[in-house]
């Protein structure tokens, strides 16, 4: 923890970071995001295996629009999100530095999203056995069972859009949900509106989701949102090739291969 505080203080002192977004002790063993901008609060910061929030979500929030030099604690998921966001030109006017934990758990300073991209290994983040199990169970379901499953699950959804707020990739100034000319997503809280919203959210995550689980964690009703994204990532990899995280704006839905494989177009 000494090394960590030392890096943060230097960053603040040198002005390389006007704001440091990290973690601090929450209730009990939990951790919660911390926003430090003056030196003597550095002691509050902590960075250990308990920290799971994807802090990159704050980098595109309007509240921090005018802060250019920001330092962020980066878990592997956060790193993947930052690299993709950089690829989508979201950090044009930002000077970012990152604090990551290397293999033997001591803090490492990385300056700039490009450097982070190279630091990011190719290896994918493995799913936990529970997640694998749930996915397999879901995969085995028939179409009718799946429709019934989501009818049951989505009947709880109140469209509070916490999942949208928690997701680092959802940074649009105005979301399609708010478009009323034409009214893409039907407004009354009906199952149809919920289906339309969650299908749209999945499509907007195609080739972009970094599988950090923030959406499911944020859902007040605990809906199994990650089944949707994880199954989509698996399907896209099977049909269109590996899901590589890079700074390239070219992603799944804005490029093509002349010989993309499919078996349903006549």
């Amino acid at each position, binding site marked *: 923890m000494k090394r960590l505080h030392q890096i943060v203080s230097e960053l603040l002192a040198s002005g390389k970071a006007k704001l440091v977004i990290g973690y601090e002790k929450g209730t009990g063993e939990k951790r919660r995001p911390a926003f430090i901008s003056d030196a003597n609060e550095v002691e509050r910061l902590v960075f250990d295996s308990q920290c799971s929030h994807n802090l990159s979500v704050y980098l595109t929030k309007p509240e921090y629009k005018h802060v250019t030099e920001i330092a962020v604690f980066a878990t592997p998921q956060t790193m993947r999100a930052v690299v993709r966001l950089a690829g*989508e030109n979201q950090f044009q*006017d930002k000077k970012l530095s990152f604090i990551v934990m290397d293999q033997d758990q001591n803090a490492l300073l990385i300056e700039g999203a490009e450097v982070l991209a190279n630091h990011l290994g190719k290896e994918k983040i493995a799913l936990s056995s529970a997640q694998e199990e749930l996915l397999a169970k879901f995969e085995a379901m028939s179409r009718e069972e799946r429709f019934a499953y989501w009818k049951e699950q989505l009947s709880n959804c109140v469209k509070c859009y916490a999942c949208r707020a928690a997701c680092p990739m959802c*940074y649009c100034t105005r979301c399609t949900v708010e478009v009323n000319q034409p009214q893409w997503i039907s407004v009354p809280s009906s199952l149809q509106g919920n289906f339309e919203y969650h299908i749209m959210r999945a499509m907007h995550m195609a080739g972009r989701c970094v599988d950090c689980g923030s959406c499911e964690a944020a859902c007040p009703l605990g809906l199994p949102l990650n089944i949707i994204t994880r199954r989509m990532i698996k399907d896209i990899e099977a049909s269109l090739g590996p899901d590589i995280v890079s700074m390239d*704006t070219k992603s799944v839905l*804005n490029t093509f291969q002349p010989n993309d494989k499919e078996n349903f177009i006549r």
Partner: protein
Amino acid sequence: MARIGVFICHCGENIGGTVDCNKVAKSAESFDGVVFSTDYKYMCSDPGQTLIKQAIAEHKLTGVVVGACSPRMHEPTFRKTCSEAGVNGYMCEMANLREHCSWVHEKGEATTNKATDLVRMLVGKVKNNKPLSPIKVPVSKTALVIGGGIAGIQTSLDIANAGHKVVLIEKQPSIGGHMSQLSETFPTLDCSQCILTPRMVEVAQHPNIELITYAELESLDGFIGNFKARIRKKAKSIDEKLCTGCGMCTTKCPTKKIPGEFNEKLGNRTAIYVPFPQAVPNKPVIDKNNCTYYQKGKCRICEKFCPTQAIRFDQPDEIVERSIGAVVVATGFEVKGTDFFPEYGYGKYADVITGLQFERLASASGPTLGEIRRPSDGKIPEKIVFLACAGSRDPAKGIKYCSKICCMYTAKHAMLYKHKVHHGDAYVFYMDIRAAGKMYDEFTRRAIEEDEVKYIRGRVSRIYEKNGKLIVKGADTLLGAMPVEVEADMVVLATASVAHNDAADLAQKLHVSYDENNFFVEAHPKLKPVETNTAGIFLAGACQSPRDIPETVAMASGAASKILGLFSQNELTREPVVAVVNRAAPPLFSTCAGCFMCQSVCPYQAIEKEEIKNRAGETIKTVAKVNPGLCQGCGTCVAFCRSKSIDIQGFSNEQMVEEVFALLNND
């Protein structure tokens, strides 16, 4: 509030036969927004159109739906009618009641109901249409022609003679291209230089043509009518204004042993050289790779002898910019060298030469002053073997296509040889004689019948050298594939015509597509052979695929005529069906989130970045902007944009959703 008029056409019996047009018109009256609805026997006829105009005036209509044939047929007609009556053309839509309804369904209530649904669908759309006016784009009336061969020369002259400016750039020190290397041309055997040189001089002296040789295209930006071309003028190390072309430097230059490109390496040239006597411009350039001064810093003899002190060793490459309205690619082709053929000796045997090299031997200004002499010992060959289809029609060598011109020039070569060496023996190993032009087949028959050239139908498997002779091992498939061996003094390979090796780079600079053989791809093989998919860029000559001189000249004039059509108006008008990125009041300025992932979706590179600045000039936000000149209105970006910030005029999100609503809510 929308005041829409619905006009149902019977189209004689074509629609009336199976659809109750009167009933459709009646039920259309009840649609929301419709204030007038009628039906008529022939809506597209003159009375029909006047009926529409009267209704527009009488009911002060703001939108029109015509239920008749396919919009692909009469949409322009009815849109013109509406605009003449004061309603913007784009407020008029057509419902396809004929091809998509009356002609394909049985007579009956279901068909009439479907017709009503289709009309309701288009009424829903028109309610959301907005008046649009065609996009006007200024046109700068200067054409850029890339490549100074016969194709580039012909195009430039046609455009210049029509009074427009042309910038003609050529990579070599002189224009003329491959045609200037030819001895005589088929099928009339008139001398290539005699018919080409006057054209070259005409280009050099034409007031409307700016000729820049030893230059290549550095980059091309912008769009049809408004291109910005940056041209790299490679340093000639000569001050062209002072140089009189006296040639003193080329005689005094001590480095004389450089294999000349013009003579296909059969003759030598000096380091400071003029490619050939009739070169245009007739001024030398210094070949930096072989000039002793550039390589070792010594010599400078040419500088000493130059009467007008025109040598400039320190001359740098120069980038010049021109604003261009249209581009013609006329970069021509190359021929494969003899080293491309393992089974014919990997280019090791000096007396195995290419067709172009034979042209240089046969040419009066060539290294042997027109006498057919073998490169190895200068002897006149008693027996020559010509190989047609060398490398062409050969997928194993990666060249699937037929090079089209070799049958003709091989017959010509054989004929020229027999005319110059009467007692000589000429063999031609051929696959098929493809001589399909005017007077072409007669020409090859002359070679066979009068000049007694021995044509053998079969491909040569191997050539090797044995005590000064070239053993050619072929077969005669007309004699039961019997092996045939000829001991020749010289062998001429009619090697495949291929694209230049830098054709792909040029295509990428121009955003023009090219095929697997690196030939440029035309917009439509039959109906748009001289255009490309990129508006404002045209093709002429063999850069599109191998072709002979007559076809090249015809194609060049074709490309020129397309440009003259473009330059005939001061402004370019284009369909207003283009995408637009929404704008909003500050501080939002636009809902575009600036991810710019739409840029890689656009096939026309029409989406640019626009920096929104405040009064102090600082960039507040960078958002997407569609260039109406480049956008062709496909809408792929609209369906991609996650935040629905881009919409397309004529097929907007509201219009399409409204169509689907109207179509399905028929109760």
